[in-house]
């Protein structure tokens, strides 16, 4: 007989289109974070650290990297005889086959997966936040309040509350009203998109709303349950929680890690974050390098200068190269005398000798001024940048580029190069 008290369902199917070229070939939860990690490592590690050993990961958009990363869950101790991690892509059914059309629809399509564990509670998580949270405490709270649904919420500055779904509560923390991105918020308690459901309540709602188009937790399931007077409680969380939905917030969250004593501390023994390490050797720092205020991961070979930056595993930085205020991901090669400033450079990129990135005035992006903003130069994975070119701010590059792509050896601020098939 299989019995789990609580299982988790981790929504990892979204593209995260506001991360631009970073997510053109991988789902947002697979994007690298903090040097050696990927975003999904945080909720997965939270699960195992909270004693939740059964996790269904719902994938849909570009799942290859995510699948390879998760494997059978060994790094998170989620390789279990019973339970463990299971990757759940959409699948063909007799009759109405469909993609996952919404968060709740994705969960609905996996009712059988959840059913087999006889869980009393189901934890719904999303794969795109950076935080450490003990879901067991939240479950205890859920039980104490005899809740049908508990929603993790955190206080945000009232002026920012209009970006979130906010909740109004009574004295007991029972939620009385929901407001989705209100213009004039009456509360600063924002929903974090983390829910604990009584399985019976969730199952009933999913089935009742199975014909709802693009069925979504925030828009459909929670309002439905609220309407039929289910006991919905807010669980207040006051730790570090960061939505890395935009290039700006993604860059900022990475940069916070290099503070002398970071608010989000990865160096604590307690509550470790686990990841799939395929590169083990130590990093080598040559006699010509200068490193200040940075974090650098395993297997790097650093011969240049690195300031205020986050460097992923297996990165090579050539002699005379200077990296400032940037994020460089796994296995990227920065050749000699390159200069990189305030840039996000994804995995397996090659930056040519003497090339300068992030130089120029602030000009709005011609590709998408909402995505490529914050003065960042963003280079997608597997890109190649030739020698001795200059690339401006708010730029986007994806694909193997050649000198001919850079008139006057320059890509001005706000410009972009997206090679065919790379979008």
């Amino acid at each position, binding site marked *: 007989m299989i019995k789990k008290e609580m299982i988790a369902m981790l929504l990892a199917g979204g593209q995260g289109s506001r991360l631009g070229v970073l997510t053109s070939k991988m789902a947002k939860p697979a994007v690298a974070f903090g040097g050696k990690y990927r975003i999904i490592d945080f909720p997965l590690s939270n699960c195992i650290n909270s004693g939740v050993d059964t996790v269904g990961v719902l994938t849909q958009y570009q799942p290859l990297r995510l699948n390879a990363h998760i494997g059978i869950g060994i790094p998170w101790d989620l390789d279990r005889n019973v339970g463990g991690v299971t990757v759940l892509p959409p699948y063909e059914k007799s009759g109405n086959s469909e993609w996952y059309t919404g968060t709740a629809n994705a969960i609905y399509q996996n009712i059988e997966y959840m059913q087999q564990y006889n869980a009393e509670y189901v934890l719904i998580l999303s794969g795109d936040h950076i935080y450490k949270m003990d879901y067991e405490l939240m479950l205890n709270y859920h039980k104490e309040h005899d809740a049908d649904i508990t929603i993790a919420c955190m206080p945000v500055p009232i002026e920012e509350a209009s970006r979130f779904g906010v909740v109004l509560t009574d004295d007991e923390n029972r939620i009385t009203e929901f407001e989705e991105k209100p213009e004039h918020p009456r509360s600063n308690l924002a929903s974090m998109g983390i829910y604990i459901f009584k399985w019976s309540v969730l199952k009933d709602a999913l089935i009742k709303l199975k014909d709802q188009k693009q069925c979504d937790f925030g828009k459909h399931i929670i309002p439905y349950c609220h309407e039929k007077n289910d006991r919905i409680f807010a669980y207040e969380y006051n730790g570090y929680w960061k939505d890395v939905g935009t290039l700006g917030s993604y860059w900022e969250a990475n940069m916070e890690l290099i503070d002398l004593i970071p608010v989000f501390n990865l*160096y604590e023994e307690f509550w470790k*974050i686990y990841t799939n390490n395929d590169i*083990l*050797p*130590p990093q080598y720092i040559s006699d010509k390098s200068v490193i200040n205020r940075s974090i*650098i991961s*395993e297997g790097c070979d650093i011969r240049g200068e690195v300031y205020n930056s986050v460097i992923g595993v297996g990165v090579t930085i050539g002699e005379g190269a200077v990296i400032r205020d940037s994020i460089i991901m796994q296995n990227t090669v920065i050749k000699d005398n390159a200069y990189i400033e305030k840039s996000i450079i994804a995995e397996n990129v090659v930056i040519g000798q003497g090339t300068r990135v992030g130089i120029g005035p602030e000009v709005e992006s011609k590709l998408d001024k909402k995505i490529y903003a914050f003065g960042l130069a963003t280079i997608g994975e597997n890109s190649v940048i030739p020698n001795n070119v200059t690339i401006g701010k708010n730029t986007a590059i994806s694909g193997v580029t050649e000198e001919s792509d850079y008139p006057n050896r320059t890509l001005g601020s706000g410009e972009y190069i997206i090679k065919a098939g790379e979008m």
Partner: protein
Amino acid sequence: MRAIGIILAGGNNNKMKELSYKRAIAAMPVAGSYRAIDFALSNMSNSNIQKVAVLTQYNAKSLNEHLSSSKWWDFGRKQGGLYVFTPSITADNGFWYRGTADSIWQNIKFLKNSHEPYVVIAAGDGIYKLDYNKVLEYHIKKKADITVVCKDMPQETDITRFGLVKMNEDSRIVEFEEKPMASDSRTVSAGIYIIRRRQLIELIEKCAEEERHDFVNDILVRYKNIKRIYGYKLDNYWSNISTVEAYYKTNMDFLKPEIRNYFFKQYPDIYSKVDDMPPAKYNPGSNIKNSLVSSGCIINGQVENSVLFKKAYIGNNCVIKNSIILNNVYIGDNTYIENCIVESHDTIKANERYVGENGQIKIVVEKNERIGL
């Protein structure tokens, strides 16, 4: 591969000085992120040997912790697996391992219950990469009874701590001397042997009957004229870490680009237990030159020509030169360390000075209380 593996990891010697107090040599940390035994284990795994026994005796705590799961080296299959054998008292035996041959004899069932025709025996303190399949091919081609992997050592190394061999033109070993006072040969045994399983059982049982316990003296040296014992020359890097000087030098070798490239970049990889440390952190004031830094380190001071193992904390204004800082060491502000090996889990106070003088390597063991952090 048609062989099982045995790793001899029981050994220790006083040449490791204080470093041996805590652990068997096979468990010594090497090259920042590894332990010595990872090299033999990874070689076995990469040679498709599926069943490996690690024979251990001396202070095996560190080693057992390291071998807590066999999945890091990709053992732990239904076929085969990783076995750790420590001495145990049984109805007919109450001894510790009295020698290498005895350690195999006490686990002779492991040999008898296997069906693979060959056995690879390797020491746990060698730092090298080797495809044992190539040695086996050679072994079969030479119709050898035992093949001993050998290495020509450069002039400057002290070879009196090794077994020295002399071979004839056919590579058959005609002389084998264990730790001689003087010798004109520069070829040493690397402590890696291939032998047919039935042959090994026979020799080990004979040894036991005669109350002999040492594999080298009582089998290799004693049988060298009776059995066909061949030498297989190793061309690539090989180093044995079982003295303080050799241990220090081996670690420092990894500062050379060609050695790093050979071990870290070229196929096949060396595996180790994953520790889940965050990336190394360089705070303002850090100044690193020609050094290896492992994950989990936090550096506030100056580090030069050194190897930092995992989770070292280097305080403000510290100077670390030509030194090896083992796992989980805390070094307080303004401390000066040169030509030292700092033992793992050490806590070193601020404003201290440790220097290995006159070309000697100083071993620093400091167990102060760690406050904060």
